[in-house]
Structures are given as C-alpha cells and as structure tokens.
C-alpha cells in the first residue's frame, strides 16, 4: 500500500520512472519533421536524377547540410520511439521483445552516425 495521493503517483512517473517523456519526445520530433520533410521533398524533386557532382554541390551548401543533419536526427529519433511502441504492441515474448527493441535502437544510432559522418565528409 502506498500513502501517496493518486496524483502524486501519476505525476512524472510510470513504472519506468520516465512519465510522459516518450510521448512528449514523439510529439516534439513530429512537429520538427513537418517543415523538415516538406523541405526535403522539395529539395529531392529538384535533385531528381542528379549526377555525383551536382549532388555534392547541393550538400556542400551549409544550409542544405545543416537541414539534412537536422532531418536525419529528428527522423531516426522519431522512428526509434515510434517503432518501440509498435514492437511493444505486437511482440509479447519478453526475451524476444528486449532483443528486437535493442536491435532497433542500435540500428537507429548506427544509421544516424553513418549519415552525419557522410554529410560532414561531403560538406566540410
């Protein structure tokens, strides 16, 4: 039995002691992705079929490099949070769930690092 008030039990806490953090981060990244993805689609339509030199020149522009880095970070943060929820909904065997969750999180980090390294290599 706990002597905390109901609101005290709920506020900022869950069984993982992280409260609404996951939900909130999903929303913050979603809001960031609205302008970033619209910009990205616009940029990609103008780069359709581009050769290497044209693409290098595009990514060499600091504005495009910065926006692409922001896009990649926001996207994979959002993906990692979103796919976690999907896995928790469908994968019920505890061991398997942990393995898949870890694989997704590690893959997202690896993809972000590979993308940012490549962008910097082209742009700097």
């Amino acid at each position: 039995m706990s002597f905390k008030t109901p609101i005290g039990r709920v506020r900022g806490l869950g069984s993982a002691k992280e409260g609404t953090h996951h939900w909130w981060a999903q929303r913050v990244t979603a809001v960031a992705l609205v302008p970033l993805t619209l910009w990205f689609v616009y940029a990609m339509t103008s780069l359709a079929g581009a050769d290497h030199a044209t693409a290098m020149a595009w990514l060499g522009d600091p504005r495009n490099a910065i926006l692409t880095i922001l896009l990649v970070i926001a996207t994979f943060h959002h993906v990692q949070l979103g796919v976690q929820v999907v896995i928790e909904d469908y994968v019920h065997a505890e061991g398997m769930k942990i393995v898949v969750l870890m694989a997704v999180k590690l893959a997202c980090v690896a993809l972000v690092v590979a993308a940012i390294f490549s962008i910097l290599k082209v742009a700097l």
Partner: protein
Amino acid sequence: MSDSKAQDRPLSPHLQVYRWEWTMLYSILHRMTGVGLAVGTTVLVWWLVAMAIGPGAFDLVQSFLGSIIGRLMLFGWTWALFYHLANGIRHLFWDAGMGFELETGRLTGHTVLASSVVLTVLAWVCGYAALG
C-alpha cells in the same frame, strides 16, 4: 492495486466484431506508413553514404532509384510520407483536445487521404519537370 502479476482479465473483442468505419483504415494506415517510411528511409542513408564514398557508389544508388522498381518504391515512399505527415498533424490536433467528434473525425480523415494523393502527384509532377 500495485500487484503487477499477470491476471486473467477479460480480453476486448477482436476487430471483426466492429462495424466498418473509414477511421479504422486511417488509423492503421498511420502505423503502416510509419513503419514503411522507417524502412524506406534507410535508402536516404545509403544515398548519403554513397555520395561521400564517390561517383561510382553514388551512380549505383541513382541508377537503382531511377529504375522502374526504384521509382515505384520512391512513389510509395512519397505517398506514405504525405499520408503520415497529414495524419500526424491530425494526431497533433487530437493531442490538443480538438477534433474528436465522430463527424469531424471522418471528415479530417477523408481530408488527410485526399491531400496525401494530391501532394504526391504534385511532388512527382515537379520531379519530372526537373528531370526535363
């Protein structure tokens, strides 16, 4: 109350007992486009890494993306993005406490689907215009 052992609680009835609603489709499509986009976005990383490696690697990605299969995948990715984007904004309005009425929910759902189709076609018209 704080007993966390699994209990034999009744399960909620499964999907097939519910009357068909468009909003069901719009709901599951958000999840499907989200996961599809996540998988598809690895191609963006491939594109960036290949660009950093050099012309040979980059031309390989470009010729894959330019092939019929590549174009179909990109088309699907574009639609999934616009659907998820528009429906994501619908989600954000719900989070702000707006748009829960049944009629409103149907209307915003139809609007999301229609705008995703229009925006996809628009983006591809621009893309082909840029190709010349």
